[in-house]
């Protein structure tokens, strides 16, 4: 699916980036675990709304972040994401609900 398809879930776009192809997803709040295990070209579903998440995502080849539970995206995080060409979406959904929806989008 295209990264922009995540908009269709009604998730709010906090940072828009290149509309690259997303082929997988990973859910986690332990960034070291994300770093070690998340697939490339994926979307990360997490509640870690801070700048370091952007660094981890970029290094792991993640293309989009979904920040769950209505957590606020700080300005420095949004700026970092913009510089790294990374999508950020926010939602009131929990990580589980977001994972299920993304699973559907990916046809899993």
């Amino acid at each position, binding site marked *: 699916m295209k990264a922009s398809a995540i908009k269709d879930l009604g998730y709010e776009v906090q940072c828009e980036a290149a509309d690259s192809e997303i082929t997988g997803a990973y859910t986690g709040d332990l960034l*070291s675990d994300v*770093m070690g295990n998340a697939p490339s070209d994926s979307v990360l579903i997490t509640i870690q709304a801070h700048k*370091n*998440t952007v*660094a981890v995502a970029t290094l*792991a080849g993640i293309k989009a972040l979904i920040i769950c539970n209505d957590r606020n995206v700080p300005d420095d995080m949004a700026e970092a994401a913009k510089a790294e060409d990374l999508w950020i979406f926010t939602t009131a959904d929990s990580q589980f609900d977001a994972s299920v929806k993304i699973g559907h989008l990916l046809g899993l």
Partner: protein
Amino acid sequence: MQETSIPINSVSSPSVILELTFRLKIRDVMTRNPVCAGPEDSLRQIQHLMKENAITGVPIVQNKHLLGIISMDDIVSALDYGYINDTAEQRMTTNLIVLEEDMPVSFAISYFERFRFHRFPVLNADKALVGIVTNRDITTHLLFEVNKEIEQLERAAGRAATASAVPNQVQSFTVKKHDMAKAGYASTQVKLLLKKAGVSPQTIRKAAVAAYELEMNIVVHSDGGELICDFSPDKLVITSRDSGPGIADVNLAMQKGWSTADEWTRSLGFGAGMGLPNVKNVSDDFSISSSPEGTIVISTILLEGQGGQG
């Protein structure tokens, strides 16, 4: 009608194709939710179903349980011998050969070679019908995957032709204690340099993981230190050196999940005890030594064959 077989056999095909036929599962290539009919439906109804959906075989199911199959040949015979108004149950083929969705595609290919059927119903682990697979499904998906592989090869070839090898150079980064905002700077620089030199994404990721975790360890656990990245065409050696307080038990620190990180670090999603194991995991060579004066970790990532010829 003569069926052309899939031009792939198990010995003389290129290894990339063979690998694909093993990697892809039948569920990846099958048509999901195929058009089905019930046992009470007449052959006439099924003939219409085939026409409307441009298909040549219809599974007969009851409560997702596969009972049989009616093919175009069955319909032709029915018209020929005048029993087109019979029910599916009376005329369907019940001696079926089925595939399971988690079998590799290579299985389906060998079945098509062996049995000369045009399609196989696909069942899940609960024996419910979940799809149908035809020769066409397999060739389409294989072509799609082969396209992807070729694109990658072309990109790699393009890189080899235009990219320069990783230059011999040493970069040092000072990493300060608790400077979370700067964490990731060194690893990003490493990533950029390797990317510019045309190193493969997989190798870049390994290097980025090692650099980032080591950088993070200095930020979170030490009194400050530095990351020294020694680049050469065939390898990258990352040395992380800090000025204490050292790791009390290195063996424990190498275990997944063991951590001394504080609450603040953990609340940011770090300090889960994955750092050093992650570094070791991506390294081609790894060493660690620690004393109260400081910790030195050396991680080597091989860059061989990564577009270094250009």
